[in-house]
């Protein structure tokens, strides 16, 4: 059995750490590329959202490397993601791929449904080992997220352009290379030294909160490395969702203390959006409100074309923008998006923010 899974930013680091710790044979799909997108968009339904198309492309590329089992998350709606796995599997079957599908999702009748699926993937590992494996993956996710947060801070302040990215890449390799939970403290120390070596100088920066749909937030391929681009424009960014926070909220039910939780965001969404709308729609609205209250200079919303929850959020964001006085830019991505168009819009947005604040950035 060779297990594969779809890409979502750096999620593969956490997932393959977890699975390999448990002795599962993992095929990480090749990094998402133009080819992935072309393959996926050719066979996926036209109006399906972008993540579905990329997932499909990932699976087709992973099959070339011998993967035969798909491990995916599911859901119970109303966001389309809950039905991704089934539609993708139907498409792959019609194309002649022979994939087994294992969907981890909230069970409909009995918790046993979920447990037996985990057992199927992990084979002979004991539950104790499984839990240790999951926690190992989570710790890696957290380290990667910390690295990203540091990079967001350093990039607009770095002395030598590109030094942050080089350090980030090296540090990421260290995290990836860690094979065992016992290695993590050493890696953490090493990573701290690498990131600490980036030279910075104090200069005025703008602060922008990025909100929106989780896949487009986490996957640099679809958002054209938005955070890096903003960093080079002199903007420090924060993101409403990090992978480790998502894991803590949805898998650990918020047990790990000291991490931001979606509950705050959902509370802050009232009175603009008073009900959950699936996906991360309510979190998007609530996070925009929180960023406005925290004095951020602007908010950028990211969504894949036709994403239903984010369209609802998009419809109420103008009210927040005018009432709380924070500029909001909405960016929709799909397979037709172009990088140059995005850059122009970002530059214009950053100019607007800088003038409002009366500062000169880079």
């Amino acid at each position, binding site marked *: 059995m060779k297990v594969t899974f779809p890409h979502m930013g750096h999620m593969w680091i956490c997932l393959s750490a977890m699975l390999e710790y448990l002795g599962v044979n993992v095929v990480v799909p090749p990094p998402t590329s133009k080819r992935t997108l072309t393959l996926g968009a050719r066979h996926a339904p036209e109006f*399906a959202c972008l993540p579905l198309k990329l997932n499909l492309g990932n699976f087709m590329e992973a099959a070339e490397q011998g993967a035969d089992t798909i491990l995916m998350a*599911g859901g119970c709606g109303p966001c389309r993601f809950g039905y991704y796995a089934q539609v993708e599997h139907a498409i792959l079957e019609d194309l002649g791929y022979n994939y087994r599908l294992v969907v981890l999702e909230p069970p409909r009748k009995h918790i046993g449904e979920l447990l037996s699926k985990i057992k199927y993937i992990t084979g002979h590992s004991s539950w104790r080992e499984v839990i240790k494996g999951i926690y190992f993956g989570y710790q890696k996710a957290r380290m990667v997220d910390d690295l990203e947060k540091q990079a967001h801070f350093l990039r607009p302040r770095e002395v030598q352009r590109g030094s942050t990215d080089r350090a980030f890449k090296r540090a990421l390799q260290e995290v990836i290379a860690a094979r065992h939970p016992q290695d993590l403290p050493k890696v953490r120390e090493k990573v701290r030294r690498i990131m600490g070596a980036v030279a910075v100088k104090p200069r005025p920066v703008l602060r922008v909160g990025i909100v929106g749909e989780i896949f487009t937030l986490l996957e640099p391929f679809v958002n054209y490395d938005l955070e890096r681009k903003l960093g080079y424009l002199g903007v420090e960014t924060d993101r409403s969702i990090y992978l480790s926070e998502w894991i803590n909220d949805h898998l650990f039910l918020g047990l790990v203390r000291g991490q931001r939780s979606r509950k705050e965001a959902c509370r802050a969404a009232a009175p603009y959006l008073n*009900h959950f709308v699936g996906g991360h729609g309510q979190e998007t609205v609530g996070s925009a409100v929180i960023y406005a209250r925290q004095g951020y200079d602007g908010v950028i919303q990211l969504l894949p074309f036709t994403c239903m929850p984010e369209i609802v959020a998009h419809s109420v964001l103008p009210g927040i923008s005018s009432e709380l006085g924070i500029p909001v830019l909405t960016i929709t991505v799909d397979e037709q998006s172009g990088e140059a168009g995005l850059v122009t819009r970002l530059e214009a947005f950053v100019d607007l923010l800088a003038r409002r604040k009366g500062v000169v950035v880079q």
Partner: protein
Amino acid sequence: MKIGIPRALLYYYYIPLWRTFFEALGLEVVISRPTTKTILESGLRHTGDDVCLPVRVAFGHIIDLKDRVDVLFLPRLVSIARREYICPKFLGFPDMVRQGISGLPPLIEADLNLYRRDSLYPFFSALGRNFTSNRFAIYLACRRAQQVQARYIQLLEKGFFPEEARAALSGGTGEEQREPARGWPRVAVIGHPYNIYDPYISMNLLSRLARSGVHVCTADNLPEALVREHAARLPKHLFWSLGQRMIGAAWHYLQRPDVDGIIHVASFACGPDSLTGELISREVKRRGKPFLNLTLDEHSAEAGVVTRLEAFLDMMRRRPLLQVGGNGR
């Protein structure tokens, strides 16, 4: 007191229920005018580009109503069946309206949520308390409304379309006299009620088909249980109620030898339809029935739709000839 109900979204399923309930409580029900260009355009002006057509039309209907009524009925339709939703936009619709339209009359709001329970009473009781403190009156109104709704559903299952069924309900009698629809070929039109039953949005699809002698049937002409039985063949329970109906009906009509073809109607960029439509068309391909996929949006031009429809009907009419001649393939 006048209460406004927009002629949009699930109006076509639920209007007898809403109307009977409010009338039993002594309110005057005002329904927005049938969709026109003006209504559509005012809806377009008040919504973002990426919002789907049905929601944009619904905005137009609310604008049509807002100055003519004392209160506006704007329920949040969270779930109309166990463990199912309708679509995220239905969940957020009241919030979108409040942000998008200014000068609204007082809103009569309540969450209709059958995700974990089966009774409609809590919903109606929340609604009724806006108008009366008499619980018994609310209970009676709720019961009466559900009786009328049950008759409406029966009429739909007999082959009536919503407007005809509504006329039959308010006319009191006459439902038995209606002769069964005839015609050939027999075509199943599969689409969300607010797309296929709104003549302006569907560009008179149903009446156009009827005029060319086609016998039309829709998903709503099938009993709920039958639809669900077919949808249960999916590998996983589908969590969109309308999607259940679309898939269940399509798969049922696919099996029926007396149904000659299927027309799938979806609005541009409809989320659930992008997946359920895909599952339907894959099944159709396996079984080889004539299939037409019509996508509607605010730019749809009538001539284009008519041409495609005519071509589709021609194809269906010629099919038997080809098969008899034996040189069809």
